[in-house]
């Protein structure tokens, strides 16, 4: 498939935006936490799971989605939410725990809910998969042409909710696409120690649904596989699964000593940076100059900086607001 310049450039811009956001959050996370690391300190306390390295997956899939297509994500949600087109200010403010955040400070980095982009996520592995099935059920009941997508890791593919959800979606022929981001590890546990098949795409056979493996560092490959799956779902032909092989560049969470990695493993994978891969493709076509790439980077840096400013300048919720929003 020959992709258009605009399509590729949009993918590129999206990937750069996610990377820029993640790396900046990664920097700010350590403010006031060092020298003796204290997870509770700083402007961004708590756990932090960043998406750097995997951006091609979020960008390649979400390129096909409309704001009203529901997406569910995981403990590592930033990339998906950005690719879905969130208001960056509100997202950053939530990560800072501010009143102006998406969830008024109640959710935080792992619990980002955005009705505008029909996005939800959460900190329980596998917890979001059934939600996408349910969203797809709602879509089918209303005879709409929306599509639900659930992103999750290869580690999550061994939890019961994976099996139950995909079976439900297949039995009910729902418009939902399951995207397994196989970044080789679940925290420190390598895929071979957790998964009885070589590829989660082999598991499509257990539900009679199409399932493909793609190179998750290559945005174009993801884009093409996602197009097929999402179009299929939109046409009412049922669910499918995409397995994207990818890599996380920053460890499981910030502070991860990564003692479990092989010797040159990370540096080898860093050679497959999705920004470089897509950048090279664009340059080969003559669609991106170094100067343009720099301009894109500068724009994204500005946008992230603006979100940062917004977040920092926003007020915290009042303590007593903790008692609100329990019930509708």
């Amino acid at each position: 498939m020959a992709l258009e310049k605009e399509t590729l450039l949009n993918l590129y811009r999206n990937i750069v935006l996610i990377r820029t956001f993640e790396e900046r959050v990664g920097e700010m996370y350590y403010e006031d936490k060092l020298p003796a690391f204290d997870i509770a300190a700083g402007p961004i306390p708590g756990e932090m799971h960043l998406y750097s390295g995997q951006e091609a997956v979020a960008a390649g899939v979400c390129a096909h989605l409309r704001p009203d297509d529901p997406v569910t994500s995981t403990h590592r949600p930033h990339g998906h939410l950005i690719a879905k087109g969130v208001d960056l200010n509100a997202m950053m403010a939530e990560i800072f725990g501010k009143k102006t955040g998406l969830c008024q400070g109640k959710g935080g980095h792992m619990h980002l809910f955005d009705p505008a982009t029909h996005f939800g996520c959460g900190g329980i592995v596998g917890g979001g998969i059934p939600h996408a099935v349910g969203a797809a059920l709602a879509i089918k009941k209303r005879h709409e042409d929306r599509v639900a997508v659930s992103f999750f890791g290869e580690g999550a593919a061994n939890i019961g909710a994976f099996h139950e959800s995909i079976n439900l979606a297949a039995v009910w022929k729902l418009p939902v696409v399951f995207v397994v981001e196989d970044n080789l590890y679940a925290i420190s546990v390598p895929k071979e120690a957790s998964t009885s098949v070589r590829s989660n795409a082999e598991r499509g056979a257990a539900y009679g649904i199409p399932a493909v493996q793609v190179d998750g560092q290559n945005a174009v490959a993801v884009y093409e596989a996602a197009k097929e799956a999402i179009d299929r779902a939109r046409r009412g032909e049922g669910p499918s699964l995409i397995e994207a092989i990818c890599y996380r560049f920053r460890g499981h969470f910030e502070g991860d000593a990564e003692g479990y990695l092989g010797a040159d493993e990370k540096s080898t994978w860093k050679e497959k940076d999705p920004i470089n891969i897509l950048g090279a493709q664009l340059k080969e076509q003559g669609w991106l100059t170094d100067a343009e790439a720099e301009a894109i980077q500068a724009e994204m840096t500005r946008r992230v900086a603006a979100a940062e400013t917004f977040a920092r300048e926003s007020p915290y919720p009042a303590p007593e607001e903790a008692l609100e929003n329990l019930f509708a």
Partner: protein
Amino acid sequence: MTERLLTTSKAIAEAIAQEMERDDSVFVMGEDIGAYGGIFGATEGLLQKFGPERVMDTPISEMGFIGAAVGAATEGMRPIVELMFVDFFGAAMDQIYNQMAKIPYMSGGNTKVPMVLMTAIGGSYSDAAQHSQCLYGLFAHTPGIKIVVPSSPYDAKGLMTQAIRDDSPVMFFFHKGVQGLGWMTPNPRATAHVPEESYTIPFGQADVKRQGQDLTILTVSLMVHRSLDAAEKLAEQGISAEVIDLRTLVPLDRETIVNSVKKTHRVLVVDEDYLSYGMSGELTAIVAEEALDYLDAAPKRLAVPDVPIPYSRPMEKYVIPTVDRIVATAKELVES
């Protein structure tokens, strides 16, 4: 004209049917809720009325379909899901307590989860340890779920209608021994007058089922019936028991509880759930906190004595509160 009588199960099914007629976004799913009509009859006739798109039998995938209900609810549907026995919650608990209950709060209110999770509770028919539990106390401990535990056909209909219209997640616990099923031990209170037209009963309003002066019995569900029978016997012995059906545990009608105890000066909690760390502890604590000076005797609790429900009849009778044991405990309380 005679009053229309309905069993609790038919009252529930009627509430659901009326809401389904009223609101396209309401649908039902669960195991054997279609052609079978629900093992405990709570969905009887719905498939025939509304068809398989709105009355969906599910695979045995509690995590999956309860989670799917959560997802459908966040997209604006109003699912009613049946968990066949509450005892099976363990297969779905993450979706119940980490997702359904918490998403409204975690989202800062931007995402609603308007759904009803209905489930069967209770024992006294030798279904043993994995099919006889109540567990409403366990769910009441989880912030974010409204907990409804009706004891009569009338309340079941009104509270179910209320539950479906509520924008928050509601768990609705119906007792097998209160459903009025033909194959359960007959219970005369399980069939009663239920108005045909739709009505609601607000949450958080306890029902004083019987006025009394000498002690207050706080309870829910089938134990309301046994407590009323006990109150009858106590009356014969000159003891006047006030019986309060809490109807909802979250929200809880603290005022009615406290006012009653201030009047009777004695309180007995009767609970078919496990004794420790549950409903009976909470209610006793509330009384101690809010009516300490009015108490003429130490509060008492009658509940399942912290063992699983045993199969064999004599043992099961020993652990689930009976009328006789309610009477005996009430007498001890009044005499202390």
